[in-house]
């Protein structure tokens, strides 16, 4: 059986904020396989960094257990864990040259100088910085500093590579470039990696799996595809890729399909999701109550007035032509506003402000969640 690289069991962190205890991380469970890149994604304050820092050993959990490669490390000091940590601001030692920064860990491990040199050079080559060894961090660009920080960590061949928003201090273009660089390097070295970010596109493009966190709790764990196409909660739906959330009254329930009243129109049917957090037998949808319909802007078409089933009468608030797409803002009859992103085909009709239109939701790409 494949040994898990990291296991978090019921990991909890409570901070004392004044007199109020705050659960910054709340019973988090996670199993990470060897060689996997897992991102922690969530808004500021969701507990993702605290979780990462507990894995690193900078924080000690209030409760729960952290196992690295089968070894209980819950209370092991940072310097005995064999992890590598890449900081948001790189944390390069400003008083040491690039070479000495990269060699720092090997030296504190007590390795001989002649053994250190080839390793450092190799690590610098890996990140494409072999010529900078004598420079000081202040003489490097942001992207170069970032790479030195990476080299400093991978030269240690850590069991786990932990990265705390490593790209957030870089400009947009460099960020895109470094994303792929890091991912390539991580795959090449086969190193297990936890990666904290608040940038969803970073998470979606880099991760094998994403852990979406909110208010200290794990909302959902899954592959980027699962997270995007099958959100298990309103939070995930909203946080990843800006979904429209339309609250509707349930008119009929038939197995996994739910039918709801369309304001000013007829009815709309789509599959109803049952998030993992609910018990199997728990009733979460009831006739006459509300449910939240999740539909992404790209799964909405905007058509001329007609009154077929499943269409939502709406009024155009704004329409912006962005080249490949037309971005509509629509107001439904119940005054809810939604966004639609319609691919532009030559000769297509572009509706103007105040036009009366119908929004056509793709029912195979929309789903109900508990309101």
């Amino acid at each position, binding site marked *: 059986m494949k040994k898990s690289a990291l296991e978090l069991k019921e990991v909890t962190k*409570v*901070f*004392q*904020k004044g007199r109020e205890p*705050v659960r*910054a991380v709340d019973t988090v469970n996670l199993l990470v396989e060897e060689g996997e890149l897992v991102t922690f994604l969530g808004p*500021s*304050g*969701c*507990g*993702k*960094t*605290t979780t990462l*820092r507990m894995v*690193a*050993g*900078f*924080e*000690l959990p*209030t409760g729960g257990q952290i196992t690295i490669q089968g070894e209980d490390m819950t209370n092991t*000091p*940072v*310097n*005995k*864990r*064999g*992890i*590598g*940590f890449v*900081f*948001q*601001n790189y*944390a*390069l*030692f*400003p*008083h040491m040259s690039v070479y000495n920064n990269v060699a*720092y*860990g090997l030296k*504190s*491990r007590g390795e001989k100088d002649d053994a250190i040199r080839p390793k450092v050079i190799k690590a610098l080559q890996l990140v494409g910085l072999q010529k900078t060894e004598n420079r*000081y*961090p*202040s003489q490097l660009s942001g992207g170069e500093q970032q790479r030195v920080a990476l080299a*400093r*960590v991978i030269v*240690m061949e850590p069991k786990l590579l932990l990265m705390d928003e490593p790209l*957030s201090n870089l400009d947009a273009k460099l960020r895109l470039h470094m994303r792929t660089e890091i991912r390539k390097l991580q795959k090449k070295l086969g190193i297990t990696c936890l990666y*904290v970010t608040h940038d969803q596109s970073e998470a979606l493009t880099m991760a094998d799996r994403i852990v979406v966190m909110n*208010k200290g709790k794990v909302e959902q764990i899954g592959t980027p595809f699962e997270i995007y196409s099958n959100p298990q909660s309103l939070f995930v739906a909203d946080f990843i890729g800006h979904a429209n959330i339309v609250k509707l009254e349930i008119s009929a329930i038939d197995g996994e399909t739910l039918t709801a009243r369309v304001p000013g129109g007829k009815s709309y049917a789509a599959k109803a999701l049952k998030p993992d957090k609910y018990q199997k037998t728990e009733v979460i949808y009831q006739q006459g109550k509300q449910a939240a319909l999740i539909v992404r802007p790209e799964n909405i078409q905007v058509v001329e007035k007609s009154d077929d089933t499943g269409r939502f009468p709406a009024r155009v608030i704004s329409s912006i032509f962005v080249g490949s797409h037309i971005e509509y803002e629509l107001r439904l009859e119940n005054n809810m506003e939604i966004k639609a992103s319609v691919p532009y085909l030559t000769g297509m009709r572009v509706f103007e402000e105040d036009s009366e239109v119908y929004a056509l939701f793709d029912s195979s790409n929309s789903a109900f969640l508990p309101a």
Partner: protein
Amino acid sequence: MQAYDDPSIKPHRRYAEKEYLMHGSMKRKSLSKTDPALFFALVTVWLSFAVFIFLPLIRLLLTTFIVDGVFSFTNMKKVLGTGYNIKALYGSLILATAVSITGTFLGYLFALAVTRTNLPKILKALLGAVTILPLISPPFTSSISLTLALGPNGMLLKAFGIGDFSIYGFLGTWISETLTYFPVAFMVITAILNTMSATLDDAALSLGASRWRMFKTITIPLSLPGIGNSVLLLFGASLADFATPLILGGHTFPVLPTEAYLLITGMFDLRGGATLSFLLLVPALLVFFLQRMLLGNKSFVSVTGKNGARTEFAKLPTALTAFIAVICSLLVVFILYLYAIILWGSFVKVWSVNNSFTLDHYIYVFKHGKKAISDTLLIAVLSTVIGSVLAVVIGYVAQRKQFIGKRFFEFSSMLNYALPGTVVGIAYIIAFNQRPILLTGTLSILVAAYVFRYYATGIRSVVASLEQIDPALEEASLSLGASSVHTFTHVTIPLIIPAVLAGMRYLFIHCMTAISATIFLVSVRWTLLTTRILESMTELQFSQASAFSMVLIVIVFIADAVMLYLMKLSTSKFHKSQEISYEKVGA
């Protein structure tokens, strides 16, 4: 909901929180086990506080309030029953108020001149240089030169043909203290004027404000915290000043520090002296607390070189610039004149009577003052080294660690610094005059007095520097497998070295030039240059006093230059300059 990984929360706060929780939530293992290094440091430092800060202060209070074994106000009544002492209390407060106002005013003008005008570069450089002079001079330099200029046979008096004038009294003391302390105001206010955003000026002007209106509505209101801080600092400094009123106050204008000194050295009335210094302690502590309230926990640190690409501040209205230029130039000329007088005075036979050139006074200084010079140097070097080590430990512990009683720890460390030197000096002779800790007349009592008073500048500069250093650097070291001791010696220490040197620099200057506390502690065995200057002054040997002063100024100047060079050397490797200027350190 607490945004824990909110990037707006400073990393060092996170770190602090983390430590707190580690100790708070970890089923309370004793500190000696979880962090033996911290435990050891705390025990050592608390013990030294107990002996050198609390013991003297408690003995002082006991001497003041315990008569024949019972609590009593007898001493207080006796002291306050004397009209002359009431006059001294009143004089102290009036003088402090006057000095804090004039000093801050002049300091503000100087600060504006340097930061907000397009005066010639040379003049600006001169302004800066002139403000450094009083900082590296013994505290009564300006008193001596004022005496030479405006005292009996004063040069200026003769030049203007004024016969009947006495510099002694309130006026002389006020002028001299203003000259001595306005550089402090200058530095505090310059710092705050520099941290303002120049875009605010631009915004005001672009909204149609005149330059006067901009000055009144933007510059002044935003510099109020600096002004407030400066007023408090100067009030405290003047309240505590001992040397100036001793030379210039005369009989007509008594103040508390000098009265306490005269009671003790002249009448051997330790109780009276203790009681008077208690009177001094109350307003001093009040100022200390007000200042802490005003600044909160914010330090006045601005790391230099950070705002490379900022725009220029808008210039002041022309009339104001002209006014500033005139006042500042006059002051610069006056100060340079005063220093020139001392230099000249040290080379003439008898001041104003026989003005022929002689080296006699310097020969005297190096012959009979050799011991004072070597003693002073030894004491200053010892105090600087010990004080810096303590400052690093205390500053590091206070900034990076969490432990029970931390606030009290910080407060205690600053206590001797906040108290007027006279109070500390009297407390020390009372406390260490008897067993079990008999230190009177020794080297240790002088070193201790300096260390626990002036290491404060070192502590502040270490704390300020650590605040600038992201704890992520230390975490990076730990995560790369280094132990916490290795991290401290290889990452933390190299990064705070410039700050430590800055602290050492001021510690050394203070130890070379201070007098108020140590005047009570010198003895035949150990004497100081400053006390020799005072002796010469009281014996009316003005030229001798000038020669001593010049020697002292030159030594301090050389030492200061060496320190500055070392600081430059230590920062040259990495750009992020850690230079910490005087005002942040609280002057």
